[in-house]
């Protein structure tokens, strides 16, 4: 007992040995994961009703998927370079990731335009409504990520002595992008299968 008390007295008061921002990101991703899961459950629940029609997925979605994958790969490279202290190269990859993300968002908006031009409105069928809803929500989460991306990219232009904090920030952005890539991939698979 006394030994345990001595051990406890030395406890540093942290549950996991990780920077605060990383823990925060993991918790946030868990919450976002629950949000998308619940939308998916609602999607599957609503599918069971007779009026459900299958959405013909435009081919452009495949291209958009490729773009967001590239942006994730580019983020990975940005992290790798930041960790190796190659700030300039890291910055180049950061800018590329941003451009690709913008490309993805614009691509998704084009998909919307295509669907609308075919007369697939949100009110036409719940499957179309879900498509707009899920893609919009995914874009919103990417847009939130772009705020962090802006901050980190600006930081990459400022010369700094200590780069580990910068590397951490780039890494956190990359983790978030990988996460949103997985979310999109799962959504896309769900859309393709139904």
């Amino acid at each position, binding site marked *: 007992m006394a030994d345990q008390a*001595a051990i406890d007295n030395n406890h540093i*008061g942290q549950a*996991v040995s990780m920077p605060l921002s990383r823990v925060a990101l993991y918790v946030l991703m868990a919450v976002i994961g629950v949000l998308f899961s619940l939308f998916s459950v609602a999607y599957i629940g609503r599918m069971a*009703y007779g009026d459900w029609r299958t959405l013909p997925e435009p081919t452009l979605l495949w291209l958009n998927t490729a773009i967001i994958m590239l942006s994730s790969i580019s983020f990975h490279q940005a992290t790798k370079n930041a960790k190796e202290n190659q700030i300039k190269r890291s910055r180049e990859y950061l800018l590329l990731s941003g451009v690709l993300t913008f490309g993805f968002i614009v691509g998704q908006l084009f998909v919307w335009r295509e669907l609308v031009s075919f007369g697939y409105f949100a*009110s036409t069928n719940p499957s179309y409504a879900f498509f707009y809803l899920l893609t919009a929500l995914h874009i919103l989460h990417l847009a939130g990520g772009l705020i962090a991306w802006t901050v980190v990219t600006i930081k990459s232009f400022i010369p700094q002595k200590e780069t580990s904090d910068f590397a951490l920030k780039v890494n956190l952005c990359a983790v978030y992008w990988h996460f949103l890539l997985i979310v999109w991939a799962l959504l896309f698979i769900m859309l393709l299968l139904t």
Partner: protein
Amino acid sequence: MSESIIPESELEEVELYHAKSWWTEKVFTQDAKLIAIQYGLTAFAIGFVALVLSWFMRIQIAFPELSIISEGTYYQFITMHGMIMVVYLLTALFLGAFGNYMIPLMVGARDMVFPYLNMVSYWTYLVAVLVLFVSFFTPGGPTGAGWTLYPPQAILGGTPGQESGIILMLVSLCIFIVGFTMGGLNYVITILQARTRGMTLMRMPLTVWGIFTATVLALFAFPALFVSAVMMLFDKILLTSFFMPALVEFGENLTYGGGSPILFQHLFWFFGHPEVYIVALPAFGIVSDLISIHARKNIFGFRMMVWAIVGIGALSFIVWAHHMYVSGMNPYFGFFFATTTLIIAVPTALKVYNWILTLWKGNINLTIPMLFCLGFIVTFLNGGLTGLFLGNVIVDVPLSDTYFVVAHFHMVMGIAPVLVILGAIYHWFPLITGKMLHEGMGRFHFWVTFVGSYLIYFPMHYLGFIGVPRRYYEMGQTEALYTSSAADLNVFITLAALAVGFAQLVFIFNVFWSAKRGIIAEKNPWNATSLEWQTPEQPPIHGNFGKELPVVYRWAYDYSVPGAEDDYIPQDVPNEDVKLADGYSELGVEKT
């Protein structure tokens, strides 16, 4: 020996944010304690609105001949009363106010880990409250859909507030959830990562455990409300048919078709049931601490209490459909949800036993906080037992939508948590303001609130048994259906409700009066062990603790320890600094 094995761990302190102007210090503050007060005042302000709405409703039910409000207004008031009390008052108060004030102080941190985010969280909450409040003044007024907002009626003509009230309600809920998520991240990560040295998870006071678990619940349950709110907004504004079946309104076919109102109910209650525990778990935690302090005895079965909180939190996610027995479901589903509902009674009953066993042979001081705690135990027990009735399908079906249900949930998640909140305010008011609340007004407040609540809700159980339906704005000529005593009881309940309402006015006066003119509180007036009372200043200033953060050497329940001279040992006092009582060579060891 063990100390030599374990290296001294030194963590660098994170630099504390310091405000540069009056605005950033007092208004757009990043200090968790001030944010807590902002949360508290806002929640009480909007909660007061909900209280006044209930007075109108009670007068209408008791004296329908006065026609004080119309049937449409009655529905609007009932909706706003419910939603405000559950989400905007109780959730905001327990997590936003108590969470912000207590977490950093109780775990020995200088502030929340993300103070800026914490500030934004409060202002987002305020926007949510304002958006909701504005709906009182829009054409058509606030929504009258009932606090559960069931479609299809929530967005159809004929339901009051379907013009803009329902939209504002849904938007406000979405804003609230976004704001809460920011706060919730802060609470969880501060507790996990920013405790002071020696503060292991199992040394945290139960208040922190309750708030922590409730926050985790809220982080994972609120998204379900968000999903249902967004989808209903789509149905209302973009005319989608997520929840809306084919309908004829005023002889015309609406464009809706094929949607599932039951889907909404599942989503809503997947949030709704954990919400009960989002309110209850912090109350459990706080009441455990208060009972221990005011009975001068360590909490009985501390570890059991922690695991009960965690267990109840986990179980709360698999009971939601017990709110939907009358919506129609596969009988096996009903069986499953009835079973899980009854299982949740096990850890809950365990907590009640432990509170009682803590009181047993304790040195019970009948202070005002203790009175509220005792009031809580019996009220929660009452409300919990009627929950066992309603958890059973066969009993629930006839009682559904009667006053029995109203009585049940008001006892268990209205009165019970509010008694804890009030007790907690009497307990921590000296810490927050440096003054004591007035004793006489406090005792008056307790007795009228406690006895009055029973006079309101006990008769409601009876009304439910004889079949009086809830949500009716007047009973009309009901002699054939119920005895005339139902009408007389309604008058009685209304008078009791007004008396309880008056007692709350006395309380509000007491808070403001005592904050200005109250007796100055001595340091740590209740002789409590937890860290919030061990700050150099009372009330604690920005940064909470002095130059050095406290180091924790024990749990928060060292009361009446054999061998110690005082009947409490603060958490930051090491064994060697404890003054020994005569006849003891060390703690718990008598001289031979």
